[in-house]
């Protein structure tokens, strides 16, 4: 029951920057439509919807009823009543309702009832600290209102040492996060013995965020939690909450590995909301080039902030956050003596910096915030009027969750999705029916990812010895324990595997990544030696190469030295008018085939691949004009990756018959790869960067890249140029692969849906309005190709047809 905030936005008194007339999200939508009718490809209005209620359950203890009355609640929303009944029946439950629909009452009522009746304990897990503190505040208010005598505490990294003992012994409700459970609670479970013995409920909120790698970690954490509970003879009941996704029941049961009752029908009222899909205007009709999404997001955000509307811009990358922040600051923060009206928020900032931005947003001091998905979770930043998405976040569900950030009870809110030139974005704004009608995507996790399992079996062995054939979830942990024994961290004695090392494994395992190899960014300006940021291992090669401009709160730093093995980047403050963008190449080699099938005249296969990614150099791109003003070399070790993939191949004979030249076949494959990657990304709820595409020979001998204009070029294994006609063996292959070591379970379901993907990719290409190919279907093409006898679009279509089964 997060109470929607009814406060009106504070209007900045700086009259020069602000329209005289106060407007709301609906009025801004009208204004944008009047001014730029040709840029809005669709508009969706969500009308206010009235609430559906149910009476307070008769078996709800009288004291809780009184507490609810005191807080002005005399009836429940229908979904709250349904949750009460299901939990009372002893079922594990997932509640799937929109933001601000009162989902916390779904778990608070049973938790409070049992805490009062039998002193049953409950553990609440929220993905962030800020959210946990909000929940405790709310629970305490209800507790006070009814004098319920239930003791609830947050337990996180900020909890002082002397308070921890009291919380362990006396907390009826302990509110924490997965990281604390992982690093502080489970490894010290003996101190929590009384708590675990009486643990009745485990509440996990925001489970839609626990997908991909993080989800796999949390699923393993649940395995560890169940293992510890079993040691203390407890079998807790799970209550999960999720934002709207396509498969809440399936996802919830994958996460906790038991059957879950899903409650999906919200009875909460909905406020008025407007959504615009926005395509930047065409600026070069010959090439089909559009203005950048960035320019449009910047313009919309500027209009919104000037109109006095609290505005949030989501950008897809950290660099884009900094660029957009700079542009908005150039307009709104040109006077350095005044407090900043525009702030940036992204991963890689130090926690203190992020907390300070959150505080200023909540206090209403900030008018515009530019953020990455780091802000997507329930981080409380107060009420907002306008959300601008600079680029499609990669899934329908994530789009609605981000739009859900805007919304006030009293006035209409606005969400604008600005399409980038990314094909996925173009696909979406040009097929708005897809956006309006498509069910939200499915969340997937692969908890048995080998590396993640190894990490958690290591932590589990520390918590309790493995004895005999004890499984870990459904996994037989023996090979993992053997490896740990070989490394000297566990010791096998008869039937038992005992922890033996003098180390605390949970500290070395981060739930937020496959493995912890973060780089720190050290500022050396004027003799300082200060850590100013952290960068994930996977992002380091693309953002911290020597010469890179690394921006923090739109202040540019230049990377002077990268200590790759020491995981450090040394930077200094700089004054430049450009930013940098890495140029990278990918090469694949098939290692093992798990499954294969005939696909049209070719084959579709699924298996394990070796991926080598090389950052070859970088481009310098000038601000505002975005012209390319230079290149720099990068000399970094290749990024290697063993992962799972699916791929399609056509034999040389088929290709020779169907295509006039090898170059034509190659262009066809590159175009087909773009289309297949596009529909595959839509099909699974993947962040686009979690699933990657590549075209190559399949044995690593050569790989193909599109040059800037879409013409395929061959490269030999060492990255040098090669000619298709000179190859003895020419068997191009299109790959879709998981972009994580060991895979994260995307390519296997895609292989199962391979025929559907081909069908959809063909529909996409055939149905596209362009003549020769465009970023929305097969990627950008040369102007010259528009007139050629056989267009790249036809080539891609031919490849897809040859592969199609029918």
């Amino acid at each position, binding site marked *: 029951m997060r109470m929607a905030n009814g406060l009106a936005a504070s209007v900045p008194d700086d009259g020069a920057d602000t329209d005289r007339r106060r407007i709301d999200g609906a009025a801004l939508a009208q204004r944008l439509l009047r001014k730029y009718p040709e840029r809005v490809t669709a508009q969706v209005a969500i009308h206010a919807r009235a609430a559906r209620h149910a009476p307070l359950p008769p078996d709800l203890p009288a004291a809780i009823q009184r507490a609810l009355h005191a807080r002005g609640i005399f009836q429940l929303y229908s979904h709250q009543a349904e949750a009460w009944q299901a939990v009372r029946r002893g079922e594990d439950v997932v509640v799937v309702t929109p933001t601000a629909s009162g989902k916390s009452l779904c778990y608070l009522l049973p938790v409070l009832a049992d805490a009062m009746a039998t002193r049953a304990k409950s553990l609440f897990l929220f993905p962030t600290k800020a959210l946990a503190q909000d929940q405790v505040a709310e629970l305490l208010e209800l507790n006070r209102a009814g004098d319920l005598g239930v003791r609830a505490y947050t337990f996180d990294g900020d909890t002082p040492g002397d308070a921890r003992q009291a919380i362990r012994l006396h907390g009826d409700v302990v509110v924490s996060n997965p990281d604390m459970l992982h690093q502080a609670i489970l490894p010290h479970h003996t101190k929590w013995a009384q708590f675990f013995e009486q643990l009745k409920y485990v509440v996990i909120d925001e489970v839609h965020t626990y997908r991909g790698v993080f989800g796999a970690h949390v699923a393993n954490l649940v395995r560890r939690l169940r293992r510890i509970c079993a040691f203390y003879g407890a079998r807790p009941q799970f209550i999960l909450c999720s934002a709207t996704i396509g498969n809440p029941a399936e996802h919830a049961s994958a996460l906790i590995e038991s059957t879950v009752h899903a409650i999906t029908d919200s009875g909460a009222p909905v406020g008025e909301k407007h959504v615009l899909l926005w395509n930047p205007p065409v600026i070069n009709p010959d090439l089909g080039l559009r203005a950048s999404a960035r320019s449009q997001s910047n313009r919309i955000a500027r209009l919104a902030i000037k109109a006095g509307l609290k505005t949030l811009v989501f950008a897809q990358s950290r660099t884009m956050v900094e660029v957009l922040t700079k542009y908005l600051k150039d307009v709104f923060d040109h006077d350095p003596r005044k407090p900043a009206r525009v702030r940036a928020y992204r991963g890689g900032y130090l926690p203190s910096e992020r907390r300070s931005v959150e505080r200023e947003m909540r206090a209403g001091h900030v008018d515009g915030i530019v953020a990455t998905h780091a802000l997507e979770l329930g981080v409380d930043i107060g009420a907002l009027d306008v959300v601008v998405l600079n680029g499609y976040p990669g899934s329908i569900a994530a789009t609605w969750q981000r739009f859900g950030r805007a919304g006030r009870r009293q006035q209409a809110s606005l969400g604008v999705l600005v399409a980038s030139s990314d094909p996925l974005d173009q696909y979406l704004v040009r097929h708005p029916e897809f956006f309006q009608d498509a069910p939200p995507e499915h969340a997937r996790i692969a908890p048995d990812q080998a590396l993640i399992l190894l990490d958690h079996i290591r932590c589990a062995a520390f918590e309790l010895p493995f004895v005999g054939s004890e499984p870990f979830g459904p996994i037989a942990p023996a090979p993992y324990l053997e490896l740990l024994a070989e490394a000297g961290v566990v010791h096998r004695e008869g039937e*038992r595997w005992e922890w033996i090392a003098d180390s*605390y494994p949970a500290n070395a395992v981060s739930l937020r990544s496959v493995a912890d190899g973060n780089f720190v960014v050290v500022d050396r300006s004027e003799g300082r030696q200060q850590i100013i940021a952290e960068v994930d291992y996977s992002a380091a090669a693309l953002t911290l190469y020597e010469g890179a401009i690394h921006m923090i709160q739109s202040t540019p730093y230049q990377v002077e030295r990268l200590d790759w093995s020491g995981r450090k980047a040394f930077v200094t403050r700089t004054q430049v008018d450009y930013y940098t963008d890495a140029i990278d190449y990918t090469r694949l080699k098939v290692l093992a085939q798990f499954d294969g099938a005939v696909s049209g005249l070719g084959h579709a296969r699924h298996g394990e691949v070796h991926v080598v990614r090389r950052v070859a150099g970088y481009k310098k791109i000038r601000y505002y004009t975005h012209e390319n003003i230079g290149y720099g070399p990068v000399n970094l070790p290749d990024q290697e990756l063993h992962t799972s993939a699916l791929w399609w191949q056509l034999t040389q004979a088929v290709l020779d018959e169907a295509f006039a030249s090898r170059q034509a076949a190659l262009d066809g494959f590159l175009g087909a790869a773009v289309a297949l990657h596009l529909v595959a990304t839509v099909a699974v709820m993947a962040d686009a960067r979690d699933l990657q595409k590549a075209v190559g020979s399949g044995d690593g001998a050569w790989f193909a890249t599109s040059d800037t204009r879409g013409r395929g070029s061959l490269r030999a294994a060492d990255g040098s140029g090669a000619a298709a006609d000179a190859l003895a063996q020419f068997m191009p292959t299109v790959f879709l692969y998981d972009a994580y070591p060991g895979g994260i379970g995307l390519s296997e379901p895609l292989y199962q849906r391979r025929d559907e993907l081909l069908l959809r990719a063909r529909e996409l290409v055939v149905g596209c309005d362009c003549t020769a190919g465009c970023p929305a279907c097969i990627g950008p093409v040369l102007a010259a190709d528009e007139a050629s006898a056989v267009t790249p679009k036809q080539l891609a279509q031919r490849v897809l047809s040859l592969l199609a089964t029918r």
Partner: protein
Amino acid sequence: MNASIEQLRRLRAQAGVATLPGATPPAAAASPSMLRSLLQRHRRIDGGPPDRDRALPGVEVAEGLRCLETRLDWLPAPTAIATGFDRHHADSAPIAAQRMLAFDTETTGLAGGSGTRAFMIGAADWHGGGLRIRQLLITTMAAEAAMLDRFAQWCGEHDVLVSYNGKCYDAPLLAARYRLARRANPLAGLMHLDLLHPARRRWRGIYENCRLATIERQVLGVLREDDLPGSEAPAAWLAYLRGGSAANLRRVCTHNATDLSSLMALLLRLAAAA
């Protein structure tokens, strides 16, 4: 999912993690069953032939559990000990010396949490006119429960615990071990004199630090010969557990016994000065 060790190691390296300490890559990737036989071979090579020096003091009182007992006559018991030096027990009446039970553990490390265990528990008390030092040492992990049971028998319900930093370290660690072994914690509820804090109050700034070894040298004039630093105790036990030499583990026994006698001597010194 079948994951071979070789695969796992490779994936970790790709994810940016340094290779596991002590891990050497096996000759070839293999199925788990091949791998297992490979590892067996590996282990024999790693461990080398069993060491010939495996002698440990004391007697085996249960499988994998040894008990060492020595008597020191140079430290006679006073009749009663005043506890005024301890802020928590400043007002207690003097306590009969026979109720004092000094204890000290040797553990597999300092990391804390349920993965750290004691492989030795030593205790000292005045018994039969002299100071009795008894030490329990496990030579298998399975013997831990027997060690905990034996130590519980040594703790009387009126005993007063004496330790050096035991309130923060040894006592919570043993509490966790009793909990994991599903046994009642014999230390729970006992009066506990932790000498670290009074020692700090008294000698902080006078000596370079307030570690027990420093205080005993400066205050009690005890000089340890061939002492194994406490930090090397985990490695000494682990080496023995894996079939290595017992030489360092014997030095751990001596080290622990000296800690206990110094603890009692320090108790008398503090009590006398109070």
